[in-house]
């Protein structure tokens, strides 16, 4: 038996030695682990489909109300910085910081992230240009990327003015100190954007796959930038040729003949009408995926059938409500309009009812009461301390009642970046400024009015009267589409419109009748200083590049 024991022992010994030996064998190699879901440089740029995925990643960064449009949060769109809207929630940035114009370089709006998208564009251009992929494909995709890059620069330009123009991939190893760029001037950035667009426009298709850059999108972007450049903010000497240029480019879009006004304005923003004849460029959403659109509860009436179901984060102001014409097409300021301040919601134009929820409106089969003393939780927030409206109004436009409340990503509607109505209004404005009223202007603006059932503008308007009419039309037509704040800036009227108080409609019941009083909106005080026409360069960017010079006043 002893023999067996020794035998077994020596076998165990051997076994352990063997285990140790095997352990040492090929150490380096046995530590090799292939990371999954990672792709190398080589494989991306040698394949059209892989490079396309990289391009999708650039498209992903397109501005959108749900994500980036306002650089802060989906709940507090840029519209709330304007005189069209107030956030019903009193602690949002638009109320606490932007209303008082007390933002500093360290504060919330920071659009500098666009440089990340711009880098991706530059990388794509560099790599694809150098690749051996076929030239037709290359040309098409490079054109798209240059469009996107121009669009991203536009976002920087309209918010900051001059910014560094970077068109190559910065590389700290090979470029040394050359990676630090000073700011270009505002004019240089404008020229860069419009030159780029002019260069690619001949190569862009009129009807690409939906979601991709089109000829119309590039023209619309170019026309918008030219309009911005012609506006008083950038054109203090009122150089008429700038207006003429903007008018011409917008007319180019009209001349394409592929866009027209969608007949039903309210449903234009719903998922069933995506890619309508009016849509020039939109960021796509697909319901039920991570690319679902804005959840509507953030913006809708707080209490529906008594239940808390929204935040009321965009509420129309009395200022906006007063801009809506009467059904007869006359502004309420016109003595002949028939406007009755004690029955202010009677016989207004269609777009009013399509945009605004007011006292007695029906929303989700519930009548919304805002009058003081109604007992409803939607009552005008006189004490300025609940989440309900401080103006007496709620938003209706763009909100689809068929969508569930408080449930994300079920909205399949696209976010429209450019639509045809804006082109018509851009054209009308630019043309009027360039050379005064003419039939083409009447034609453009009346198309927009006619779609909403309004009569045409009276003939014989002076240039100034026409300007007033166009601005009113633009404000009403494009309300809650993140255009108003930028319009206030470029028209240089923010100082006038945003100093003082926004207004609310206080409704009380006296002897069974509603009595309407326009009052300063609780918490609606606004301040705007001349420096605020551009945002401060973010401190984080200033810290890392000493060549950057801050905008004056910050």
């Amino acid at each position: 038996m002893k023999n067996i024991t020794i035998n077994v022992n020596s076998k165990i010994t051997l076994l352990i030695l063997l285990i140790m030996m095997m352990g040492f064998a090929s150490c380096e190699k046995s530590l090799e682990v292939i990371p999954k879901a990672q792709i190398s440089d080589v494989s991306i740029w040698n394949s059209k489909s892989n490079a396309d995925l990289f391009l999708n990643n650039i498209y992903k960064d397109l501005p959108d109300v749900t994500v980036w449009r306002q650089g802060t949060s989906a709940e507090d769109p840029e519209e709330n910085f304007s005189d069209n809207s107030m956030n019903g929630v009193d602690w949002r940035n638009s109320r606490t910081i932007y209303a008082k114009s007390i933002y500093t370089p360290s504060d919330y709006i920071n659009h500098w992230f666009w440089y990340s998208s711009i880098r991706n564009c530059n990388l794509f251009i560099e790599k694809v240009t150098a690749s051996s992929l076929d030239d037709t494909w290359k040309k098409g995709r490079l054109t798209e990327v240059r469009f996107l890059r121009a669009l991203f620069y536009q976002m920087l330009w309209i918010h900051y003015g001059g910014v560094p123009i970077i068109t190559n991939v910065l590389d700290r190893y090979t470029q040394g100190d050359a990676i630090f760029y000073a700011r270009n001037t505002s004019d240089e950035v404008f020229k860069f954007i419009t030159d780029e667009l002019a260069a690619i426009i001949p190569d862009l298709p009129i009807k690409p796959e939906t979601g991709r850059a089109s000829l119309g999108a590039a023209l619309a972007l170019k026309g918008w930038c030219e309009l911005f450049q012609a506006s008083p903010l950038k054109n203090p000497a009122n150089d008429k040729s700038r207006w003429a240029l903007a008018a011409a480019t917008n007319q180019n879009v009209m001349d394409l003949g592929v866009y027209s006004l969608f007949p039903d304005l309210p449903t234009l923003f719903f998922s069933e009408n995506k890619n309508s004849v009016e849509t020039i460029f939109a960021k796509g959403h697909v319901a039920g995926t991570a690319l679902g659109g804005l959840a509507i509860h953030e913006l809708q009436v707080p209490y529906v059938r008594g239940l808390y179901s929204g935040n009321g984060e965009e509420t129309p102001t009395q200022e906006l409500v007063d801009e809506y014409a009467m059904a007869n097409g006359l502004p309420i300021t016109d003595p002949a309009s028939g406007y009755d301040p004690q029955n202010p919601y009677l016989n207004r134009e269609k777009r009013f009812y399509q945009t605004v929820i007011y006292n007695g409106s029906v929303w989700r089969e519930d009548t919304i009461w805002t009058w003081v003393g109604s007992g409803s939780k939607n009552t005008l927030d006189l004490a300025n301390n609940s989440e309900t409206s401080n103006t007496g109004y709620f938003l209706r436009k763009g909100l689809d009642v068929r969508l569930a409340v408080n449930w994300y990503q079920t909205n399949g509607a696209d976010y429209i970046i450019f639509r045809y109505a804006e082109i018509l209004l851009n054209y009308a404005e630019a043309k009027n400024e360039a050379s005064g009223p003419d039939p083409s202007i009447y034609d453009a603006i009346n198309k927009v009015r006619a779609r909403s059932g309004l009569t045409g503008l009276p003939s014989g308007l002076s240039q100034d009267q026409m300007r007033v009419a166009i601005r009113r039309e633009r404000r009403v037509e494009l309300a809650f589409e993140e255009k108003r704040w930028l319009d206030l800036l470029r028209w240089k009227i923010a100082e006038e419109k945003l100093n003082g108080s926004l207004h609310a409609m206080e409704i009380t019941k006296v002897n069974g009748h509603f009595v309407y009083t326009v009052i300063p909106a609780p918490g609606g005080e606004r301040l705007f200083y001349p420096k605020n026409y551009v945002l401060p360069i973010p401190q984080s960017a200033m810290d890392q590049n000493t060549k950057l010079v801050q905008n004056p006043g910050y």
Partner: protein
Amino acid sequence: MKEFFLSVFSIRKKSKILLYLNLIVILLVSLTFNLSAAGFGEGKSNPIDNPQKVMVKGTVTDANTGEPLIGVNVVAVGTTIGTTTDALGKYSLEVPNTSVSLQFSFIGYLAQEVAVGGQTTLNVALTSDVAQLSEVVVVGYGTQKKTSITAAVSTLEVKKIATTPIANLNNGLGGRLAGVIFRQNSGEPGKDAAAIYIRGISSIGSTKPLVVVDGIPRDFKDLDPNSIETITVLKDAAAVAPYGVAGANGVLLITTKRGKTGAPLLTYNGYVGFQNPTILPKYVNAYQYATLRNAASLNEGNPPRFSAYALQKYKDGSNPDAYANSDAVAELMQKNTLLTSHNIEVSGGTDRIKYYGSIGYLDEAGIWKPTHQKRYNLDLKLDAQVTKTTKASFAINGRQQKNTYPAIGTDRIFELMQYALPIYPVRFSNGLNAAYPYGSIYSSGYSNVNTSQILTQLSVEQEIPFIKGLSLKGTVAYDPTVNLYKTWITPVHLWSIDTTKTPYQYIDGIFGQNKSSLTQSISNATQLTFQASLNYNRKLGNNNIGVLILFESKTNNYLNFAASRINYNLDLDELDLGSSSLADISNSGSSSEEKQMGLVYRATYDYNSKYLFEASGRYDGSYYFAPGHRFGFFPAFSVGWRLSEENFIKQNFSWIDNLKIRGSYGESGALAGSPFQYLSTYKVFGPAYVIGGNVTQGITPNIEGNPNITWERAKKSDIGLEATLWKGLLNIEADYFYEKRSNMLVSPNVVVPKEYGISLSQANAGIMKNQGIEFSVSSFYRISKDFEVTLGGNFTYAKNTLLQVFETATTYDNPNRRLTGRPLGSQFGFESLGFFQLSDFDASGNLKSGIAVQPWGTVHPGDIRYKDINGDGNINNDDITQIGDAQTPQIIYGISPNVRYKGFSLDLLFQGAAKASLYGNSGAFFNNMNVLVDDMNYWTPENTNALNPRITNSPALNNTQTSSFWLRNGAYLRLKSATFSYTVPSNITQKLKIQNIRIFVSGQNLITWTKLRNYDPEIVYTWGGLNYPQQKVVSIGLNVTF
């Protein structure tokens, strides 16, 4: 056996895993083979064959007190015969012949061997081992005698904490061990593990210590405390060097119980505890809330929000549905929730086979019903002396754990709870749900986690007969863990009230998704660890030599798979019963792998147990890095000098039982960041963008790669002193430590403009030091044989300093804001000068000249005034300065007095922390959240020295700036645990045929002394400040040994 070797060779081409599995089988088979072979070979112990058997009886007592000792192991040397003493210290044992010797051994006493000779009664008095001369301490990959150790190591006998009502072992360490800094920031079942920092924080990266259970890297927090023998903390380089790249943050070694020679022992341990939150914020009632709102409106020049009528209604509570006075915290959190633990263990054995088995059950209720934890632990061990030279050990430790939570996340519920204002009911008088948190807790569905884990381990140790002192050991451990997650989200119904109708109408509504949805996922993790070692221990005259060489490899595999469906038409929580629309169905999955291997060595030498030397280290490799950068060498050296062994001490200072000084220096490593940072790659993700109406994938660039990326390197030094004086009356262990951690991952020290557009890969450029002292003192005094007093205390102070980190010029060039030279986590902000007072304004209400301008809007009396540090007349970022310490305390201490009188025993643990700063909430109506009672103490012209600034309907931007105004001292002292127990006298238990009965009352987190108001000092502040509270537990328990 031949076939087995063949199979080993033939599978070389197959995967490693298969190979290892085969090896397990081989080892198992060889073990069985050896067992049977050995059993066959040695049948001497059969009493029938031996006519000379003798019955020996006796009593074992304490040599000092004469008290009988219970549970002493009595073994006939060289045989498998053994027993233990009973409750009266008595034993009886049949021995094969009179020539054998009996060995008496007992923890804390010096073992004795007595020859039987012709005697049939052997009474033995054991001497207590005051100097712990024979105490053996677990160290990395082995054990060492406490007296000859040259590294900084502390051990906790878990027996002390097994009866305290804690569900998670992590939370039993605070204040018990010198060198352990910790912070438990939640009390939520299953998510309440304290963060443990050994010797504080020494890195800006991960600070997690390595946890090793029975020699294998594993987590320990969910093991049954009853099945654990000791927890050892390895602190200095000499102690952690064998763990190489995993050791820099210190190591916790957990040793679980194993069988001991002796008669079978069956023990029951159990308790029932009642849990309540330690500290909860005190919120205002409805009347106070309404009054405060009106005061705010008045301040802003707005009309009051609440009418006098409403105020009266809130006050008298006569119409609770329309004018509620609710307290969501009180109404939603249950009181006296139960924490129950039961454990049964059996152990025993002979010289040849020892066994241990334990079954544990833990049931922990949450503060609300849907939150619950149940845990079953099973522990089985078998140790066999297979042949005279072969030992085999086998262990299975299984865990089945079920955690349930509401479908809505806990953080979200606490956030919602802060929006549950007292003026709205939690439930209407008819019982209908009226508040979000109520529905989120009770009717949102559920989120379950089921964890099954098995830790298996097999090792075989073989002494090499032809080289004395040499042995080989092989260990294979395979630990599979499976987590099953199931989340069923149902629409939350929420009723609202229409007070315009009479009677009031209650309207049903849905909060959140309209239809139910289900997500199920599986995550599977396996770890295969594999160790082979060579051990040599030899005493040659006065020279003691020890050598260990060990190879270890570890492979981890992870796999996730998830499937979900939304829009259930039928409210049945099965995937198959969900919507069949493709748009409602989704799935996801991923997998990853980790590999590590190392070669460990340790050489010890001592001369006459007086002069001690040790060298240890590891050559370690990890998959993290680029080829060529995967291996690193981490050595350590240590020396010790036992002065108490010198004659001049022995002769002149007889009161010194043990005195040792020791020192160590070495290097160890830490993995930082994430694997594959050496690669510059792109990541695929989806969905990215919609093209042609379809969602598409995208590819996004990762950060710039850094091919040179490598591990953090820690250089650790330690000087320590150990002393035992006056026969155990005073035990001291003190250490000074210094660590310099380099190669920490930081943003590279190059400034690129923000316009660069991509994040730079990190570089190994960060350096920080961490130094401190720690000591533990214990004193034992026996007043009489019935009356003993023990006092223990420990203290740890660890302070780190950043020596080199990435900073922009903005902070670096400003000495007030510079991070370099300050402890990690130091808090920065404006320095508050208190409030602007009326006297700071002129008659027209403008700030007087000379007062610095603050940029966040017009200031009013009662707003916070900040210090203009640079004196430029403006408050801006240049005025930011350090306003406080880090959140994690620099000082942790524990004081543990223990008194025993006859059968009564009282054990207390006071645990405290100091040098920590916590950032508080920022004033009333922040984000329209609920209001604290403290918020009613706000600035008014009459109350200029208030707790809070002037009241407004949302905090003024000026007052929410990060500033010292809101910073609080995080120091605290708490009665962490207390146990009062009574051991039933042995004359009673004897009659019941029971060895031992002990009844105890125990408590956890009983009393807390802190300056902090409303929040537990360990809870991390999140948005708004409310979080799952720490629990105060009071329990009663029973401990019976049969």
